[in-house]
Each structure stands twice: as C-alpha cells, then as structure tokens.
C-alpha cells in the first residue's frame, strides 16, 4: 500500500519544513506549498489530507478549504493558525481539525490518522 499523501500549505518556510518533517516521521508522503495558489496550481489529485495555515497572503486557509471542498467534499482538512484572535472568530468555531500554534505534533499525527481511518470505514 502506498503512503497516504498529505498536502501542507504555509507561507512561513520554517514552519512548512517542520510540518513536512513531522508528517514524514509519521509515515506520510508530503507535498508542500508556500501559498494556496501554489497548491491550487498543482491540483488536489492524489492528496488524501490537507493541512493549511490560515493567515497567508493571497488565498487564506478558509478560502483554500472552501475551494478544496468543492473539488473533494470528503477531503479531511486541518486548519492551523498562530494568531489566536483568528481562532476565536465565528467562522472558525465548530470546525473539526482546527489547531492553534504551537501544538503537539503527536496530536496532529493522531488526528490525521483518525481522519484517514474514518474515511476508509
């Protein structure tokens, strides 16, 4: 069985690289993008999970989520942010897979695992 592929979007290359490292240590294949536009250009073909930062220039995490859902309604999506006030916003409430930086890496990996398992059921 091929490794599940996780697409990661973050405009901060340091954070992006650390997420790639984390997901790879969890046994996933990764595709990393510095912007939402870059992900959309590449397409969601073969992507099993999407992890995206919220605050980014250009298309932000919320827009990216909505666009991805149009293509693949079942796609598990995780939103992460370093700005807590964004996490408190109305539109962020009630969403599963919402993480505030900094978060525990193991928690993210467990959540990704669970989402993939739920989808396979």
């Amino acid at each position, binding site marked *: 069985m091929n490794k599940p592929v996780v697409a990661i979007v973050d405009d901060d290359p340091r954070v992006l690289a650390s997420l790639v490292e984390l997901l790879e240590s969890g046994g996933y294949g990764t595709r990393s993008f510095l912007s939402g536009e870059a992900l959309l250009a590449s397409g969601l073909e073969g992507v099993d999970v999407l992890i995206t930062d919220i605050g980014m220039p250009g298309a932000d995490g919320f827009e990216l989520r909505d666009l991805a859902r149009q293509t693949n309604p079942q796609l598990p999506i995780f939103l992460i942010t370093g700005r807590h006030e964004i996490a408190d916003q109305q539109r962020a409430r009630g969403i599963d897979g919402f993480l505030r*930086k900094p978060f525990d890496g193991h928690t993210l990996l467990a959540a990704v695992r669970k989402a993939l398992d739920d989808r396979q059921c």
Partner: protein
Amino acid sequence: MSKFAGTSGVESGSSRYPDIDAVQAAKVVERITGNAWSTDAAGNFIYVTPAARGFFGISLESLNSQPDKLGWRQVIHPEDYDAAAVEWRRCLQTGEHYNVEHRMLRASGIYGWARNTGQPIHDGDGAIAGWYGTVIVADYGTSTEAPDMSKRTEAALRVRERQLQQLIDTVPALIWSTTANGTPTYVNKSFAEVTGATLEYMTAPDQSPSLGVVHPEDRAAAREAFLHSVKAGVPYIQRYRQQRAGGNYRWTETRAEPLRDESGTIVKWYGVSSDIHDLITTQEALRESEQHLQQLVETLPALIYCALPDGKPIYRSQRLRQYLGFNLEETDGLGKSRLDGTLDTVIHPDDLAMVKVRYAHSLATGEPYLLRHRLRRFDGVYRWVETRASAMRNGDGEIVQWNGICLDIEDQVHAQEELSRAQENLARSSQAASLAELSASIAHEINQPLSAVMNYSSACQRWLNAEPPNIDRAQKTLDRIVHSANSAADVISRIRALFKQSTDKRDSAELGAVVRQARDLLAEEAGRRRIATVIEGESGLRLVPFDRVQIQQVLVNLMRNGMDAMASVSSERVLHIRACRAGDMVRVEVSDRGRGVQFPDKIFEPFFTTKDQGMGMGLAICRSIVESHGGRLWAEKNEPHGAKFVFTLPLDVAKMP
C-alpha cells in the same frame, strides 16, 4: 444851556466873555431863594448858586459839558425836556422871559416838580449880554409848596411805575410782587399768559397768596416756605410744579427777594418764576437711568465689584455680598489694606500669590485683568471663578475706577476635568489596544519558530522510536530544533534592541547636516500634508560623538508628531526646527502650531498615545535615545499655540571655537 441853543449859533456865544451883570443879578436872586443861575448870551452857564448845585447834585462844569451833550438834560425829566428845550431856544433868540415848569432830578435821586424862570440882561447898546434866573422847587417841603405840584408829582410817579410795569411785562419771565406781608399786588403779563392766572386768582379771600398755580401736592410746602420768608425776611426759593394755561404742570423754580426802604423795612416782595421742567425731567431721567443701572448690576447673575485706581474695593453687588457673606468694611482693621485684607480672606491659598501678582500688574499698567482662581464662599467652600476687571478712564485717559466681574465656572471646570479624564481614559484604552496589537504581533513572531521546534521535537521522537530508530533523521531534526529555537531567541533580541541603545555606531557629524537630512527624509510627506518646514539656528555645532541614525530617528519622530498635530489645523502649518548652543549643550527645538500637548507628564511613558494609530512608543524611545546620549528631552508650550519639543545633547566643547 448850550444845548438848547445848539442849532442857533452857540459857537459865537460861547466865545464871549461872561457878563458880570448877569452873575450879579443871579447873586441878588440867590439872596432871596437860594437857587439861582446865570448864563452868557448864548446860554452857557456862568454861575449856579451853591444851593442849587447841592440840591440837584450838579456842578457848573457838568452843566456846560459839551462832549457828552448832557448839560441840563441830566437833571430835567426826559418827558419834559423837549418842551423846555424848545422854549429856552425861543427865549434866547427873542429875548422874551423864560418861564417853564418841569420835573427835575434831585441829588436824592427823586424827580420833583420845579418852576424855572429866567430873563435877559442888556448891555449899554441894548443887546442881550446874558441871562439870569431862578429855580423854584414846588415840593420844597415848605409852606410855599403848591398843592397842584404835589398832585403832579404823584401822577408822575404813577407814570413811572407804569413804565416799569411795561418793562416788566415785556421781560420773558414770570414776575410778580406782593406787599410786605405777602398779599399779591401784581403779576406780569407773561405770568398771566403762561399760567392763565389773574392777580385775583392768585389772591386768596384773606388776602394771602392763593398759590393757585402750584400743584396741589407741592402747594403746602410752597406756602409754608413763602410765609416763612415773609415772616423772617429771608429770600424765598422753592421748586414746584406750576400750572400752565393748558392745564398741565411744569417744574418751576421761584425766587423772591424783599425790597426794603432806606430804613431797611420791607416794603414789597418781588418774585420771578423760571421754567426748569426740562432740567428736572432730565435729572429725573438720569436718576431713573442710574437706578436702573444700579438694579441691573445688582440683579445680574454675576459677582460684580468696583475698586479705586489703587485697587481698594468700593462696591460689591448684592450677589457678591451674598456670596462672600460680607461687604466692604469687614476686612478693614486687619492691619492691612482693604485690598490685601480682602484677597487674603477670599482667595484660595494656592491661588493667592498668582492673584496678587497679576492684580498688581494690572493696577500698575492699566492692562485688563483676567484670571481663574478659587473664591471662598460664605460657607467656607471654595469655588472656581473667572475674574475679569478693566479700567474705567476719564476724558484725559486717567484711570478713575476698576470694574470687575467674577463668573462662577465651577461647573465648567468640573466638566473640563471630566472631559480630560475621559480623554485620558480614551488614550489609555487605545494604548491598551496598541499593547494588545503589539503582543499579538510579538506572539506571532515567536509562535512561528516555537511551532517549528515542537513539530521537529515530535518528529525527532518518532524517528528515535521507529523500528529501527532513524538516527540520521533524528540528528538532522535536532539540528533544526536548535536552529528554530535560535530564531525564537532572535525575535526576543530584536524586540529588546528596540528599547536598547547601541553605542558602537557613533560619529561626529555636524548637527545641522543631521537636521537637514531628517528634514529631507520627511520632505515628501511634508509637501503632501502642505506643511512648511523651517530650519534655523547656528551652524557648525559639533556634538560629542553620537549615533547619527538614532538622533535622526528622534528628529524624524518629533517632526512627524508635529505634522500629525497640525493635521486638523487649517492655517499656519509651519514646523520650526531650531538648533542653538546653550552653554555646554546644544538645544534643539521642534515646534508646531497644533493644539498643544494635553498630557505633558504622560506623553513620554511607554505605550501612552493619543493617536488613533500608533503604539505610544515613539516619544518613550526618543527620550531613551536622548538620555543615552547624555541629554534631556521634554515638552513645552509653543507661543502663541502648539507644542514645542526640546532636547539637548552635549557639545564637543573641545572642537567648538
């Protein structure tokens, strides 16, 4: 009697020598009657008996006085003179006897009837050599007095009185007379016409003055005064309303004086009434206006006072008296002037010195006085008032009085304080907002590397826990943890650097160049905001080596603050930068024409800001920079308005000329 012959060759007659026979004839007559005279042929008097001269009060010279054309005329009654003169002229020409009866003025001042007779004396040729004659006094007081002469004297007196009355009637004044005991005897024509009252109307049935033209309300007082004057013989003066023919009344002043005879006995009272209505009504209007003003001042909802040119209080309005709880004299006798006594009592101790200085200044210069201070109320409570006083001057420009007004501004002051507090709170909350913004910004900056650290840590654990452990990846991941952790530390360092001065980039640039450079940095912004930037001051100011970038940062910050302050000002958008030497320091001023500094004590505190956008760090950093250079930074008021930020920096004295 030259005048009588004035038209008939007097000149030749006057040049002839006196005829001794005429004089002798006169002296004969003198022995008989006492009153005798003689003239030359032309009628010039050459002799008048001493008795006649004394009786008529004349001299020979005055009888012959040509220059004033008087002669006999001065002693003959004017009404009788013409007839006597015609007769005398005729006699001089014809030589007929002269025999005329006329009234003559006596030395006593009274006219009396007299018979004047004369006849010529002829010389050997039969020509008239002179005249001699006698004057027989009709009412001489002897048995020789003729009864018809006495009657004529009385008649003449009546004529005289009538003439006087005519004179009196034509005078435009209300004239009247009474007997010695006050019975009206006469009112002149003006009196009757103006008042519409006759003598009968003015006379009461008991012969006392009726005072019928006096206003009923004034009549009793006038009667009492007049009767008192009559009784005591003192002049009468009374003001009352006097009736007019039309029925209305006008204010009148009546004066009466007694006429006394030679023995001093009052024989008559003469009175005159003058219309003083306009004067009185003007005075009344003035009094009313004065009263009105007084009431106005007393009832104005303000505390009003007046003082002498030296400041001594002389008047306090009712409200001020009530406010203070005392009037003028209460503070006298405290061993000081009334002004000092008052000020010491009513001015708040904290305001007293300023009030005294400013008041003394106004008194000395005449400049208006304006000050806000606390004023003690009667119950001991101090309230804020605004006192204004200005000098009242006379026509010569000299100060005659100071007029002042205190307005209670307690509520206003409270409102102002309230407003300031609200603004301060507002400033604080925007400061808090900025602080929140800053923390969020700092948090994000730190969160990024921290997230990376945590992600790498989890990954590292996984690589080590894998079967078999991936030591290689774990090692690489650990390197990245260290790297990311360092990034976080860098963020902290950068923030710290914001507040910390570096001391390793100092140079000795000329200050003027630094100022100009700062101006140039802001030139575009200043132009866009239509603000003129003016630089003045000394050139060649050398500082102790300084951090040029930081000092420029201070200048730019202060200049931009000044521009912000003038954003809402419509005129005079001028930013002044001035640098000059002050002892061992250089003093740099940045002045704007904005609204001024509202919280001069707080603006240098970190995170204090009055701007919508801003962290409130600018001035705090500026002060920190200036102080690290051994200088000081503070704010002053700019004149006439606006703010002035001043900082000092140490001069390199060794390099200064």
